[in-house]
């Protein structure tokens, strides 16, 4: 009888030893993992931190600031009064999820870590200013708001910049997120949901995502032909319904499946205005892979554009690869196949045309100011590279102006302003086409007259689906930004 009783006792003791093991596992061995889980609300630090400097727009709207925490005067809470409007440009700073955007790339100015260096300590001892500095961005609150509303709930990006300086005036990516939600009480779960969201709301599509550029790439193909002296706007090309690609079964046809002009001959100018694939595929093969890639790399392809935010390099295959494959060259020349571009890169292509062939280095921080509001340093506009000759630039500017006047980009027109642009409708396997527009204005500005270049991409046709084109979907968005700039 006591044998069974003892066995029962042993079983219960064994069960308790299992409990000892499990609590050791949970509290000691695996404990740090639970403790540091971003969803563990005990990490109180997410709410507060050290003071960071304010961030304002070019027109002095405060878009990020630190306010003292209620319960501890030494701690500060970060606030983003415009919510998701500046999500991708400004980013966020959160103990749980680190930081992003300007908050990350300019953390040095925004935090007062100067006081940890010897000079900083001395400075502090001598009564100098050790509070963090603030940043004034180049973004314009009106343009940012208009661009955000124009893109609406369509996945994609809008980026606007000053072609003469490289100052970024608007930077929009959708879907976005509210940086405040990564600081609030539910920050842990919100952050994990954002990171796992298949739509990637955290990704800045304006600089950190590449798309097939489609016909917008014809700006580069035309540049290659012009700069290499192979063509002029009046050069004529054959005008077939379908262009047969040598050495392959495939053909290239125009968007509507029709001839470009009269079925006999078409000029480069006509082809550019109507965005004819047959002509530009032919031009691409005439230019050849090496020269086409060389031109693209002059614009900044295959390298990371220096910028205040993370940038994905726009990509084009190597010249030798294209030289060996004429059909690939033809498709690359019309922005299909393996060529991939960020909206930023396409904005810079437009900027090159607008600025006599020179691409200015894009920047987002106008100046850095101290806690007293005194400007400490400001960004000097800097030439990044020459993409094309001034002559080619002025020829392309005229061609692009005709696109808006009488071609595929008519819906980007702003009354009274000379607007130039190029549409793109990039075919993507398995989904609706990406709608592109790159435009600028005014064409040939008088000295001192402000100018702007806008690039718009709407993923998978946006709200228009399969019927979307660059001219119908992306151009009207750019038009609103242009109109707001000139209005």
């Amino acid at each position, binding site marked *: 009888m*006591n044998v069974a*009783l003892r066995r*029962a006792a042993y079983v219960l003791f064994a069960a*308790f030893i*299992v*409990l000892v093991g499990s609590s050791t596992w*949970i509290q000691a061995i695996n404990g740090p993992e639970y403790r540091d*889980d971003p969803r563990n609300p005990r990490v109180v630090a997410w709410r507060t931190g050290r003071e960071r400097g304010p961030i304002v727009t070019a027109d002095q709207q405060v878009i990020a600031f630190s306010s003292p925490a209620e319960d501890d005067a030494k701690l500060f809470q970060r606030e983003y009064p415009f919510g998701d409007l500046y999500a991708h440009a400004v980013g966020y700073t959160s103990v749980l999820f680190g930081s992003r955007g300007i908050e990350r790339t300019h953390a040095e100015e925004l935090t007062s870590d100067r006081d940890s260096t010897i000079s900083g300590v001395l400075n502090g001892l001598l009564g100098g200013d050790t509070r963090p500095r603030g940043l004034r961005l180049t973004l314009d609150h009106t343009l940012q708001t208009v661009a955000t509303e124009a893109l609406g709930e369509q996945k994609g990006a809008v980026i606007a910049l000053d072609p003469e300086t490289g100052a970024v005036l608007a930077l929009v990516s959708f879907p976005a997120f509210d940086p405040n939600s990564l600081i609030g009480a539910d920050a842990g779960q919100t952050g994990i949901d954002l990171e796992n969201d298949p739509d990637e709301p955290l990704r800045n599509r304006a600089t950190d995502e590449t798309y097939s550029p489609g016909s917008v790439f014809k700006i580069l193909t035309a540049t290659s032909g012009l700069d290499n002296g192979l063509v002029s706007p009046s050069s004529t090309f054959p005008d077939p319904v379908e262009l047969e690609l040598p050495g392959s079964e495939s053909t290239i046809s125009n968007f509507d499946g029709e001839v470009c002009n009269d079925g006999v001959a078409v000029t480069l100018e006509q082809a550019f205005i109507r965005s004819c694939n047959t002509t530009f595929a032919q031009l691409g093969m005439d230019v050849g892979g090496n020269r086409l890639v060389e031109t693209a790399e002059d614009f900044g392809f295959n390298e990371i554009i220096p910028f205040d935010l993370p940038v994905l390099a726009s990509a084009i295959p190597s010249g030798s690869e294209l030289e060996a494959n004429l059909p690939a060259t033809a498709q690359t020349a019309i922005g299909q196949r393996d060529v991939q571009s960020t909206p930023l890169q396409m904005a810079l292509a437009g900027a090159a045309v607008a600025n006599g062939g020179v691409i200015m280095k894009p920047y987002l921080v106008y100046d850095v100011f101290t806690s007293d509001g005194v400007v400490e340093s400001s960004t000097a506009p800097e030439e990044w590279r020459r993409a094309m000759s001034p002559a080619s630039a002025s020829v392309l500017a005229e061609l692009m102006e005709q696109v808006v006047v009488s071609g595929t980009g008519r819906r980007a027109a702003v009354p009274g302003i000379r607007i130039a642009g190029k549409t793109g409708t990039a075919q993507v396997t398995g989904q609706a086409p990406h709608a592109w527009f790159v435009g600028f204005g005014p064409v040939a500005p008088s000295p001192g007259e402000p100018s702007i270049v806008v690039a718009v991409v709407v993923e998978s046709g946006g709200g228009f689906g399969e019927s979307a084109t660059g001219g119908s979907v992306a151009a009207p968005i750019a038009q609103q930004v242009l109109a707001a700039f000139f209005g």
Partner: protein
Amino acid sequence: MTRRAEAGLIAAAALVAAVGVGIVEFTRGNWLNAQVVVTFAVFAITFGAVQVAVRLWAPGGSSLLLPTAAFLTAIGFIEIYRIDGDLAAVQRWSLLIAGGAAVGVLWVLRTSGVAVLRRYRYVLLAVGVGFLLLPLLPDAWPIHGATVNGSRLWVRIDLPGLDRALSFQPGEIAKVLITIFLASYLAERAEAMSTVHRKIGPFKLPEPRHLFPVFIAAGAAFAVLTYQRDLGASLLLFGLFVAMLYIATGRSFYVISGGFIAIGAGLVAYGAFDHVQRRIEAWLDPFGHFSDAGYQTVQALFAMGSGALTGSGIGLGRPDLIPAATTDFIFAAVAEEMGLAGSFAVLAGFALLVAAGFGIAIRSRDRFRKYLASGLTVVIGLQAFIILAGVLRIMPITGITLPFMSYGGSSLVANMVILALLLKVSDEERV
């Protein structure tokens, strides 16, 4: 251990509770206040009174039980106080009542001994089963059942002139009554049940009519599970039946068939009940069910992981973030604020109670007292294991209180009565 040492340890446990309350107050910026004094007084009076009753009416009773229970109650009380001061005030009253109940039990049995309970075993069974079914009383009646968190295991008594209904969990009391019945039933039938009627392979089967209790066990557990959605209590009852059958007969047949029935019932319940399914899924992958079924488990893991080895310190953690931290998940609250050290102390406390209880049972010569002591010990040990294993992710969560530590008057009263019965049994067997 002498009675004097026992008294000293009880005073020490009361001091632990009082110092814990003092630390909580200190972390809130307060100095010594009435709460500290009142807490010390309540613990000293409750366990002191039971000890006096033991000296008077069960002088040979084990001296291990009271200090250990007092210590566990103190640890639990500190966390209840830290999470919700109002609940702690109620818990102090419950503790006094529970102490009174224990004293009452010792007084009633002072001359007759526990043997008198055998005489009333069917009355006790009827009352126990009646208590189990009490929560099924319709809501409109003055004494009626109440559903809390999806489980119907409460009874409310609406008294005229009281704006707050009296409520208690009859299941807690029922488990004591059913244990007494089982001990007495088995004391009579054990021999018949352990004789071999037929052999099938390695299994020695008793006469079919002696299997009857097994089916009662399964049936009762199933009924509770189905109608009251009380997984913890049904598991406890079932485990108690199987353990006592095995202890009484020494036949592993009962354990094996009990195991099969449990597995079968588990599978049926998994297929039939959404809430069982959700709990099992949340057990397997609590983080995957973070926002719903797994929330409580994950919050407990966060709490215990944050507690690490030495804990955040009393009053310095956030056990209030764990749902049901004062009842089912009181262990997670202790683990957070007192760390792995506190967890081990609690586990050691229960192990000591179980060891002392089995010691009493093993030393008992009388069948009934042996079975009673082992049954009561199994009730405390198994109940502690069921909820701790749920909190510590050894098995799915089945809501049940942690003896002596969870907030709740019914639970305290039941466990103090168990303590009183164990003390009485040990006193009678010492002679």
